[in-house]
């Protein structure tokens, strides 16, 4: 039972529990795996556009499926709450960081597309783009770790950020060409593995509580 200790810590610990299920980690790992599959899908489906459509379709299924699963898991085990003003401010800051990440991603992708256009020689983008990918992942996940009080997300960002450098840099520097399935798949496997371990612990530590309508004694 909780006493009147440090209210900030009480709120932080309660909020942090909602990310102990590991499903966010699984989601991020599967997103990386989806990107790896995107390259394979392009070959299977016979074109970049079809591959991209297949990748977006998979990502959509992932988002909907994992959100629905997460909702079911958390509702029966941890319940729900409306955060206070300070937490709402932190959640807004996290959203801004995520939006910023998407904007940076689009700008870099557009710049890279322009640099790789016909007739333009291979440029320093091969070094810079993976670096921007890495820094983007670390900064955004670092912001999430800080604002949501879940330090693990910074490590997640570091591993997530390794994917693009693993794909591009060995080829540029040493002529070692890794398949996207390896370059994206290896970090994805690590992240999904951690997520599944967290999920297993979460299910053991937080069993479902009796539903409100199910109790015999009634509340009032």
């Amino acid at each position, binding site marked *: 039972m909780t006493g009147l200790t440090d209210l900030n810590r009480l709120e932080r610990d309660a909020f942090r529990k909602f990310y102990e299920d590991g499903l966010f980690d699984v989601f991020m790992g599967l997103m990386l795996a989806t990107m790896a599959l995107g390259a394979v899908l392009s070959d299977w489906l016979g074109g970049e556009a079809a591959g991209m459509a297949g990748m977006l379709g998979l990502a959509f299924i992932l988002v909907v499926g994992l959100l629905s699963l997460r909702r079911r898991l958390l509702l029966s085990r941890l319940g729900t709450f*409306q955060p206070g003003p300070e937490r709402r401010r932190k959640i807004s800051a996290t959203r801004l960081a995520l939006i910023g990440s998407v904007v940076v991603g689009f700008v870099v992708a557009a710049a890279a597309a322009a640099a790789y256009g016909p007739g333009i020689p291979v440029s320093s983008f091969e070094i810079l783009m993976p670096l921007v990918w890495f820094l983007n992942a670390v900064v955004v996940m670092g912001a999430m770790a800080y604002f949501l009080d879940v330090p693990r997300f910074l490590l997640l960002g570091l591993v997530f950020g390794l994917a693009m450098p693993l794909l591009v840099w060995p080829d540029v520097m040493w002529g070692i060409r890794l398949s996207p399935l390896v370059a994206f798949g290896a970090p994805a496997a690590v992240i999904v593995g951690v997520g599944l371990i967290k999920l297993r612990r979460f299910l053991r530590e937080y069993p479902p509580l009796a539903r409100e309508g199910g109790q015999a004694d009634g*509340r*009032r």
Partner: protein
Amino acid sequence: MASPAVDRLVHEPARLAIMTNLFVVDSANATYLQQQTGLTWGNLGSHLTRLEEAGYATVSKGFRGRQPETTISLTAKGRAALVEYRQRLLAALSGIGD
């Protein structure tokens, strides 16, 4: 023994746990409070009734999908009571450790 000046409604450990947990959020459902405090449904219900009767908390019943859901929040009076409880407790214990 507690100081007579301390609000005994707040001072009871289970209600203190409920109130501190509600103090840091806008509102929460009963499952959240049960998980956070470790109270059984029956205990939680009886303490919520006491808090509601004192005007310290509002309890509203509704549905999430097809499932019944009870949402609880501290009132301004309840928040003030907890702040005052803390001040009085600190004042009552101020001599300890000097």
